[in-house]
């Protein structure tokens, strides 16, 4: 009952927006705002499932590969930089400088270096998502309570055990935050790289549709992206809530007391 109510309340505004758009699009006859039925028809024609294997699956594969590389290398680099002061002092300025470059600006040099194929896409996605992960990991380690380290020291745990049982899990909530930002970056870069330099993909098709004033396809592409983005973020949040159950519940408990 509660879940039903949540869906009803949460769905209220979206339904209202769609209905409003529908009425307005039907009345205005502006060719750039086709009515929802046409968008849905185009959506079905393009994405269910004609172009799915050629233009969505490869994009998502690049995305997944790049993101996984970013998370692994980001957490490892973050732990190394977070724990070794000299390396941190050496690399922190570079990291701060590099992260202030808008991630989309990574596309031109990577296309120059690696061409317009999957290689450059994976590299762009990986590098773009790497920065938020590495910075969040460093931040998380810095916030680790020294009291916990007293505990592990008093147990004579090795530095390696200490990392695994204290530093990294305690940085978990921050790392997850960085991973979520990284996920958004990776998604944006997946589409943007296809819009700028590609021969297929969601971004490419949508861009092509724009060049030919095919507004129904543009909107269908945006709808597809929205669904994918929403789905990925939802999956991420579910996974995070599972792994960080202790964090979420301990905070809820603390608030309740």
């Amino acid at each position: 009952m509660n879940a039903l109510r949540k869906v009803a309340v949460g769905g209220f505004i979206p339904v209202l927006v769609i209905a409003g758009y529908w009425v307005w699009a039907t009345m205005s006859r502006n060719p750039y705002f086709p009515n929802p039925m046409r968008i849905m028809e185009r959506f079905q024609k393009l994405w269910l499932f004609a172009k799915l294997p050629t233009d969505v699956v490869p994009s998502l594969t690049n995305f997944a590969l790049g993101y996984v590389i970013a998370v692994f290398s980001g957490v490892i680099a973050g732990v190394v930089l977070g724990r070794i002061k000299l390396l941190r002092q050496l690399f922190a300025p570079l990291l701060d400088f590099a992260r202030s470059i808008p991630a989309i600006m990574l596309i031109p040099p990577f296309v120059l270096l690696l061409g317009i194929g999957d290689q450059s896409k994976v590299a762009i996605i990986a590098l773009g998502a790497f920065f938020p992960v590495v910075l969040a990991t460093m931040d998380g380690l810095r916030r680790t309570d020294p009291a916990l380290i007293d505990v592990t020291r008093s147990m004579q745990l090795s530095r390696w055990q200490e990392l695994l049982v204290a530093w990294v899990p305690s940085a978990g909530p921050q790392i997850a935050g960085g991973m979520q930002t990284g996920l958004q970056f990776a998604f944006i870069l997946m589409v943007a790289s296809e819009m700028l330099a590609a021969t297929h993909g969601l971004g490419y098709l949508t861009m092509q549709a724009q060049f030919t004033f095919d507004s129904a396809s543009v909107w269908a592409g945006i709808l597809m992206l929205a669904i994918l983005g929403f789905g990925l973020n939802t999956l991420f949040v579910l996974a995070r809530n599972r792994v960080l159950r202790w964090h979420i519940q301990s905070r809820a408990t603390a608030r309740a007391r």
Partner: protein
Amino acid sequence: MNLTHPLRLRIDGLSKTYGTGSTANEVLRDINFDVHTGEFVCLVGPSGAGKTTLLRCLTSLMAPSAGQVLLDGKALTGPSPKISIVFQEYTRSLMPWMTAEKNVALALSNSKLPRATVKKMSRDALASVGLSGSESQYPWQLSGGMQQRVAIARALITEPEVLVMDEPFASIDAQTRLELEDLTRRLQTERKMTVMLVTHDIDEAVYLADRIVVLSKNPATVQEIVEVNLGVERDQFTTRESHQFGELRSHVLGLIREAQNRAKTEAASGPQ
């Protein structure tokens, strides 16, 4: 008392100064005392006396500026498996992502024991502090007193020779504190452990200790070592109401007040 018991721990000229030059802050000066096997020693002192610094130095969590700690005649060079520590802030000393059982088992990380044995030992340790049934609960699901019991179980599972406790009951409600005091005393007698407990609560020190090391302040030195001849059996009602308890309490309180006043006068007269 305890002259017949062998020497377990010798604190030998322990000193600690933070910083150097004009900003140097001398916290501990030439601390000397002995702790015998099976003895319960409480460290008390005015607040800000550097009790925690002393405790960190004598468990090798911090390097002293001078002096050493001898355990069974051998100088400690780092945290020892024979010494377990219960920290003051239980909310910060348990891993919130681990269940009570995992938190306790963590202390056995370096043992080569099979997993099933570790599990059984963890459950037994929790049972010995009265926490059977809470094995799979997370620290934040437990009350403060229960969390500190988990920390005690974790300290005991390695069967340490010496248990060091840093104001372990300071942030626990009064009723639970009495229970935990009795629990600690009982475990100490049962396991013939040597216990060193830092507290700012003079009643607690007198109730628990066989001897009380009273520290002065700025820098901390050993002001006096008070023998507590209240016997092995202690009771929250009769012991605390005894004449002897009152006398000891007043004596220690007097020493601490003295130390406090001396520190104030020195602070007022400015640095020499």
